[in-house]
């Protein structure tokens, strides 16, 4: 059973993007209130006041606006866990910009617009040599600068996770060199590197094969009582978790996208060994209070 004192409780941002993995109808029914950065920031604050230790978010204009609002308030040492890139936005941009090439040009222009010299120089090197590692570094510098430009020292960027689409493609293509370069680069920036995945068992197997040190990385992946988005199966994911006590795994989708009630979801989470945290999104003030109150009581410090 997990040591309840070691569990980190994070508030997530899915509802702010209109995401519900249970049904799109449900996310539409939530209405437009969550588009409002001030309202969303209040929800984050309520979660923090009721037991959340930090905020996990995909880096987008929406979440940066929310973060800006949060940082206007009286906060101390807010722990931030960013996920990049915000894949949905980039797919949308690619659709509008004429595919992957159009998207690459658009991102290039955005990097230049930040006037972040290190990012620009690294990016140019990547383009000239078609060097994926340099391009990755330039892109990470760009995203980190976007976050820091809104937090202005009022929050700690503790970890930056690669979005699941990037993680899964890199896993599928056996890009161990890319994973290693990313981990080394982020450590040099004194930020914990992490990976979001819905192929947890596959990732653990590959990382072991490649001798990647689990102590150096964070992982966020689905764990819930019904095995929702736990691929290839709930049993395989539980087994894999059991083999990496040194890891920093945060469970997402613990409510299976609203399919489960918090008490039954938490009862299952408490049975898992080696889990170090949970992330959960909230869409109403009452949910934020009740859910994080319960999480703190059952799992938090």
């Amino acid at each position, binding site marked *: 059973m997990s040591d309840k004192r070691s569990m980190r409780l994070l508030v997530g941002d899915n509802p702010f993007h209109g995401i519900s993995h249970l049904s*799109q109808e449900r996310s539409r029914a939530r209405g437009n209130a969550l588009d409002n950065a001030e309202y969303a920031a209040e929800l984050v604050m309520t979660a923090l006041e009721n037991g959340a230790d930090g905020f996990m978010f995909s880096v987008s204009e929406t979440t940066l606006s929310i973060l800006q609002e949060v940082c206007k308030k009286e906060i101390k040492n807010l722990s931030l866990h960013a996920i990049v890139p915000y894949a949905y936005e980039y797919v949308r941009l690619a659709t509008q910009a*004429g595919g992957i090439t159009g998207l690459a040009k658009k991102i290039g222009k955005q990097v230049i617009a930040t006037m972040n010299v290190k990012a620009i120089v690294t990016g140019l090197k990547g383009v000239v040599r078609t060097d994926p590692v340099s391009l990755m570094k330039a892109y990470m510098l760009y995203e980190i600068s976007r976050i820091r430009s809104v937090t202005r020292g009022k929050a700690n960027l503790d970890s930056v996770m690669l979005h699941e689409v990037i993680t899964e493609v890199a896993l599928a293509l056996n890009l161990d060199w890319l994973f290693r370069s990313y981990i080394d680069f982020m450590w040099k920036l004194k930020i914990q590197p992490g990976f979001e995945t819905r*192929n947890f068992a596959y990732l653990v197997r590959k990382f072991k094969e490649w001798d990647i040190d689990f102590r150096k990385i964070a992982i966020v992946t689905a764990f819930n009582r019904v095995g929702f988005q736990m691929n290839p199966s709930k049993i395989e994911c539980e087994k894999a978790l059991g083999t990496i006590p040194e890891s920093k795994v945060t469970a997402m989708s613990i409510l299976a996208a609203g399919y489960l009630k918090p008490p039954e979801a938490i009862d299952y989470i408490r049975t898992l060994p080696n889990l170090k945290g949970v992330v959960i999104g909230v869409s109403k003030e009452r949910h934020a209070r009740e859910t994080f109150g319960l999480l703190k009581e059952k799992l938090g410090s």
Partner: protein
Amino acid sequence: MLRRHIEDADCRRVKFPAIITDFDFKESLLRGALSEMSKSGRGILKVAVIGLGKMGLLHSSLLSVLPNVELVALCDKSGMTRRVFRSFFRRVQVNDNLEDLYDLNLDAVYITTPIPSHFPIVKAIYSTRIARNVFVEKTLSSNYDGAQKLYALAQASGGTNMVGYMKRFAVTFKKAKELLSESILGDVVAFSAYAYSSDLSETSRGSRASMSRGGVLGDLGSHVLDLALWFFGDLQVESAKLESVSDLGAEDFARFRVRGPNDLKGKFDITWCRKEYRMPEFGFLIQGTDGIMSVNDDNVELELHDRKPHKWYRHDLDDNVGFLLGAPEYFREDECFIKSILDGINMEPNFYSASEVDRIIEQVKNEAYERS
């Protein structure tokens, strides 16, 4: 609740049409079967992917994790794209010309290029015998004539063929198909279908976005048409209306009515200009003599006259896969295609069923243009 959504439903008792039932194996069994074949040494399939956009990357990645598959070549006309892919696919040939694929002794080719290029590329693959097993992203061709010709070429090749109508591999639509096959609704008398997204909800007059994607019928609409043909069998268009926001010729809204076997009536509402559809959504409301069923990407809901309503979410329908990328449907689709090649069979959605989608799209356009 569901009843009020079905308008103009004709409640005459009609018999449900015959259904093609060749997609009925369990995914878990398939997974096991694939690994068994690998162990028994029935061979590794050498595969190439032509067209390295979003779908090309997705299929290349999934093919890289499937047993029994060796991704040996990639092909794209863009020099920049080829350079980028070479750095990620270091053991794979990355070419710009179909001729470079001749000597590779390929078992299968995936074609994920823009739709207008499907016809010449597939034709070249078959006529030069680059491979006899071909997967094409939807739609099969730009028109029905082209689709029929490609189907004839595929028949002559004797190989396996598939078109990327991945919604058939979604657990909710699969469940709906099972229920319909069991005639759970009695005789099906009417249905309404929709396909919505917000992709071009902010499009304006003069925008080329819709044109560059070939219009909403072939893009979003083809998925829901394929599902309708799978569910109900042959359909004929009765009336149709197309609208364009951009005014550059490509449709942004499509509304049409169809008639199926045994006087089945159906209607479609398709657009990519609806707000609040962050992800594309496809759905049906189906009315039978014994009740109503609704199905979309997220759930299946059944209301029978004499029983309590029942709702299945994806969670209830074993939605996990061997490797998740994008959506579970893509993994199941590629797995099914590879298994079909190994078994020497043709599974739907194949060139024949896909040519039927192209036929309906053409009928809708003809009907709409005649009226206008």
